[in-house]
């Protein structure tokens, strides 16, 4: 049996639901074409104390194609997961989930809208209106459990919940599960559904974008001097991981290779990330892969567009790489898809490796001088790249970095 060190983990399938629509193609083409998917939100107009008025949501979809027996227990974020899982399985070459497929997926919160319905029924003295299926939709692992049921995913299933780092943390879990020999294949990522209260809560924390409410396309501007915060978004990203041995044995197309993962926790402050811990996290990932910083072609930053987060990450990148590495963020396009962001953005990184198309930071017009002198990608570039470092950081201080290479 292969040892932990000997087991190479590769990516052979991708699945996405994003504000650009259902599927990898809308996601990738939306990014390539610099399309806008951020819009004003009617419910936020009715909350005068909330400054942010914008979000990026998945286009309305009729999910009635999911069998009712499964759908009855699925919130919107679970439906997203079902769609993304089917796509990732199909690209990996499966019509049905293979035996003992591991499943690692989480979210920041469960469905706020379903929770709100239950709480409203209770407050109005009508608890009798609450159904079993309502409860099944608000369990923290509901999207994981219902998608596994619907698609017959019968290996170990576990959902890490690390807020904005959830997606990448679950990919890291899948990677470790394969390296450890627990499974040889795993579906991994994160999912999230939008609710106006999400925006309101970030607004209360003074972390939501408000400077471009009248021009939503400009509202998410990582690293830009005029940024004012993040734009809440939703979606689901799932990646099919497997040991290289498994992929080669069945002749699967290898899309990318995961070289290492690293994670640590900021313990000084719940909401203020430090460049020190971020640098440690990235450095650990690079060292684990036995690489030097100069061998990294691109850092795909977490960079949400908040003042403090962008500064801390850019400082850490500058300290570790100097100005020698390209850095981009995809949240100018997608907004912050929360628990899905790490996985959705990692999927886009796979496409960047595959095509050599480097997506620029949308809305980065003038770099905030506090964000240092890193090599920000501000224009689309076509240039073969080999190694990408992907970052995800969360409120609560959960940092995660993943290093990935072309096959």
């Amino acid at each position, binding site marked *: 049996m292969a040892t932990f060190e000997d087991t190479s983990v590769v990516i052979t399938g991708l699945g996405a639901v994003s504000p650009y629509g259902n599927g990898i193609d809308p996601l990738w083409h939306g990014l390539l074409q610099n399309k806008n998917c951020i819009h004003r939100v009617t419910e936020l107009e009715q909350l005068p104390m909330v400054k942010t008025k914008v979000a990026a949501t998945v286009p309305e979809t009729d999910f009635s194609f999911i069998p*009712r*027996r499964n759908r009855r*227990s699925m919130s919107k974020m679970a439906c997203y997961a079902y769609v993304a899982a089917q796509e990732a399985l199909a690209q990996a070459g499966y019509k049905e989930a293979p035996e003992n497929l591991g499943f690692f997926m989480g979210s920041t919160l469960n469905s706020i809208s379903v929770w709100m319905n239950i709480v409203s029924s209770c407050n109005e003295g009508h608890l*009798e*209106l*609450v*159904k*079993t299926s309502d409860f*099944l939709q608000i369990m923290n692992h509901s999207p994981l459990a219902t998608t596994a049921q619907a698609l017959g995913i019968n290996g170990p299933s576990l959902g890490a919940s690390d807020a904005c780092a959830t997606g990448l943390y679950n990919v890291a879990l899948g990677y470790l599960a394969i390296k450890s020999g627990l499974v040889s294949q795993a579906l991994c990522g994160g999912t999230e559904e939008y609710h106006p209260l999400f925006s309101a809560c970030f607004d209360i924390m003074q972390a939501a974008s408000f400077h471009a409410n009248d021009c939503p396309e400009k509202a998410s501007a990582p690293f830009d001097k005029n940024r004012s915060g993040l734009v809440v978004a939703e979606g689901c990203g799932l990646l099919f991981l497997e040991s290289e041995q498994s992929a080669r044995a069945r002749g699967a197309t290898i899309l990318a290779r995961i070289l290492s993962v690293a994670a640590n926790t900021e313990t000084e402050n719940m909401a203020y990330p430090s460049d020190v811990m971020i640098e440690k996290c990235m450095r650990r990932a690079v060292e684990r892969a036995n690489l030097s910083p100069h061998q990294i072609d691109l850092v795909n930053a977490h960079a949400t567009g908040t003042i403090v987060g962008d500064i801390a990450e850019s400082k850490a990148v500058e300290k570790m790489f100097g100005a020698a590495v390209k850095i981009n963020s995809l949240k100018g396009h997608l907004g912050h898809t929360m628990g899905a962001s790490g996985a959705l953005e990692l999927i886009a990184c796979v496409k960047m490796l595959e095509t050599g198309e480097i997506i620029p930071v949308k809305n980065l017009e003038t770099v905030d001088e506090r964000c240092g002198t890193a090599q920000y990608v501000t224009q689309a570039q076509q240039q073969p790249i080999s190694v990408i470092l992907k970052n995800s950081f969360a409120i609560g201080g959960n940092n995660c970095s993943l290093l990935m290479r072309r096959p």
Partner: protein
Amino acid sequence: MTREEIIQKTNEALSKEFELPVEQLRPEASFQTDLGLDSLDAVDMVVVLEQKFGMTLRQKYDLRSMVTLNDLYNFIEKLANEAQK
């Protein structure tokens, strides 16, 4: 309430909640084998029927005694008659 009204209201509620074609809702249809409903559906069925008929069913509702739609019609009819007395 007549039995016909009970049947019609029940079928409307079940058809909507469980996405079943009305023509499939025959009195002899078994919840499990013919309609594909399971124990979770049985619990939620009470919620929608209570709303539809505006009366409490759950205290007297015995899942094990309900095999076919006709059993359900009989149960609601009995409760409706008791409520009128």
